[in-house]
Structure formats: structure tokens, C-alpha cells
């Protein structure tokens, strides 16, 4: 199981300017636009420094938002983080305000560890689900879910229902969705099939040659 997410306190400011151009100005000034919403309240537009936004990437999870001019910090989780697809720079962050006693939905990363047993027979670990949506209390939110795959033999799979989730965490996805499987490499399988076809053709060609030879012998 992965470590729990550390509580992260962010100094944020309220934002008065909205829209594309204002957001671009903010980014040029080294800040990142953000928003916090939840519990049916009106969303609040915020900004934080780009440095903090980068740090937040490795601490994805529960955060305390210390809004300037406000006494109490807002407890929130990161709902979405928009990134530039080319540079990877954080463009915008969505925070969702949470209460510690309410169950929330969140997405966590699934990471394998260990070498699958089927590896010795030429099998290869395939990860079909890289992230999983879970339901839990904010305090129970893990950083990631680490799964021991060393027991997986060739042609065996591990489903969502078999993931070692800690108490208080329930998956949202169906329990029969495949997360990991150990299979022969697909490229190898295709190549073997092609070889088999080629061999079959060769044998067929040899058979034909023999048949023609026999027929020519009988003719003479």
C-alpha cells in the first residue's frame, strides 16, 4: 500500500480577474489560476504561485488552502489539474472543498511491484488500468495503491476486486475489471502465428511438389 498523502498547506490569494487574457497575465507573472468549489457554495477563484503548484504535483491529495484575508483554512482535495500537454506546465487547478467526515470520490494511481511468476515462462505484465476511482474519507486518501504482482502466473489476471485496498477505501469501478494481466507478448504471438502460417505454406508447397513428382513418375 502506498503512503498516505501528506497534508499540504498552500498560501493562496483570491482572484478578481477572470478569463483567458487575465489568466495568461497571471501565468506570465509566475502564478497559476485556480478555483475552489464544493458543498453547493459559489466557486471562489484563486491564484497560487507556480512554485507551489509544481510542489503540489507530487503531493496530490488533501490540501489546506490558507486564503489571504480569511481566518480559517479551507480543506480541499485536488479535483483536476490542467497541464500543457507539451511542456507539462501546470495551467489551472480545481480544488474541491471537503469535510473530514464526508465520503469523497477520488482517483489514485495503481503501481505494481515485484516480478510476476509468469515472467519466467515468457509472460509479460500488462497494466490495463493505471488509475482507479475510489470512495473514501479525505483522511484515508492514499498517495497511490501499490500492488504485489509477484504471484501472477502466465495468463492470470488481477481484478479490481482483488486489489489490496486498506480499510475505509472502496473502489467505484466494477470488481471484475482487469487491472493487471500476465500474457505472452502480443508482438511475439503475432510473429509465432506468422511463422506457423509460413511453415504451413512451405509444407503445403512441399506436398504439392511431391505430388507433381509422383504424377510425373506415373506418367513416364
Amino acid at each position: 500500500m502506498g503512503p498516505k498523502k501528506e497534508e499540504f498547506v498552500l498560501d493562496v490569494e483570491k482572484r478578481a480577474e477572470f478569463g483567458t487574457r487575465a489568466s495568461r497575465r497571471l501565468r506570465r507573472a509566475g502564478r497559476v489560476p485556480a478555483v475552489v468549489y464544493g458543498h453547493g457554495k459559489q466557486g471562489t477563484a484563486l491564484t497560487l504561485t507556480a512554485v507551489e503548484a509544481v510542489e503540489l504535483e507530487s503531493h496530490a491529495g488533501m490540501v489546506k488552502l490558507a486564503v489571504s484575508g480569511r481566518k480559517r483554512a479551507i480543506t480541499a482535495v485536488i479535483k483536476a489539474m490542467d497541464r500543457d500537454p507539451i511542456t507539462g506546465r501546470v495551467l489551472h487547478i480545481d480544488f474541491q472543498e471537503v469535510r473530514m467526515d464526508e465520503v469523497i470520490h477520488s482517483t489514485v494511481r495503481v503501481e505494481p511491484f515485484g516480478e510476476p511468476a509468469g515472467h519466467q515462462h515468457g509472460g509479460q505484465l500488462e497494466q490495463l488500468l493505471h488509475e482507479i476511482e475510489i470512495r473514501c474519507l479525505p483522511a484515508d486518501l492514499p498517495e497511490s495503491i501499490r500492488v504485489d504482482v509477484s504471484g501472477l502466473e502466465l495468463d492470470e489476471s488481477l481484478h479490481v476486486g482483488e486489489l489490496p485496498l486498506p480499510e475505509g477505501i472502496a473502489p467505484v469501478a466494477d470488481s471484475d475489471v482487469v487491472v493487471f494481466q500476465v500474457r505472452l507478448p502480443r508482438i511475439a504471438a503475432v510473429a509465432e502465428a506468422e511463422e506457423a502460417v509460413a511453415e504451413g505454406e512451405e509444407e503445403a508447397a512441399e506436398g504439392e511438389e511431391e505430388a507433381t513428382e509422383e504424377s510425373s513418375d506415373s506418367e513416364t
Partner: protein
Amino acid sequence: MPLMPKRVKHRKVQRGSLAGKASRNNKLDFGEFGLQALTRGYITAQQIEAARVAVTRHMKRRGQLWIRIFPDRPFTSKPLETRMGKGKGNPEGWTAAVRPGNVILEVSGCTADIAKAALSRAAAKVPVRCKLLARY
């Protein structure tokens, strides 16, 4: 057999615009490593096939490969020693329009070193500058 559509509505199409960055197909969705375009251009079906062959040969039958682009745009050319005019040329092949950010190939099931070497070979086969992506 290079990639091409099974059937199309129009044999010849106008070039359209390649402006802007890719707003979809711009992150890893299947594999652990990928090849992302940094410039824009048209990648022909033959270039995609060359990239695929380069990757599969280097990975030596291990791992898995996904081709994330499809050549669905026909291109035309005029026969040699033909005077200008007399209408548009004949369809000669198929291309995929690629914008900065588009993921071209994805691989998984091999070590990072092998994936990077294989994808850099594939990058040499396509007419756009590329960078390598890794999931973690």
C-alpha cells in the same frame, strides 16, 4: 500493407488548417512510454509503417505497441512532365495530420532503455520533431 481507410466519402480533400496545438490524443493512454510530436505536419502511411517496423525490430518481439495516429487524409500529385492546370492531380497516398502535442506511438512491456532507443529510431522516420514521454 500501409494503413489506409476502408472507404471514404470524398476521394480528394482540401488541406485544411494545422494551426494550434493538439487538444486530444495528447497524453499517454495505453502504454508506459510514448512518442509525442513537437511540430506540425503530415505523416504518410509509409512513414508510420517505417516507424512501426523500426520499433518492433528494436524491441525484438517483446512489449506492446500502439499506433495512435491514422492516415485518413488523401494527398494528390500530378504526373511527371505535366503542364499546370487541367484539374487537380490524382490521389497518391494517405497522410495523418499531426499537431504539436499529438502522441504518435506508445509502447509498454519493456525496459525504459529499450523503449527510449526504439522510439528514437521511430522518431527518425517521421517528418516532425518529437520527444519521448514516460508515464512515471
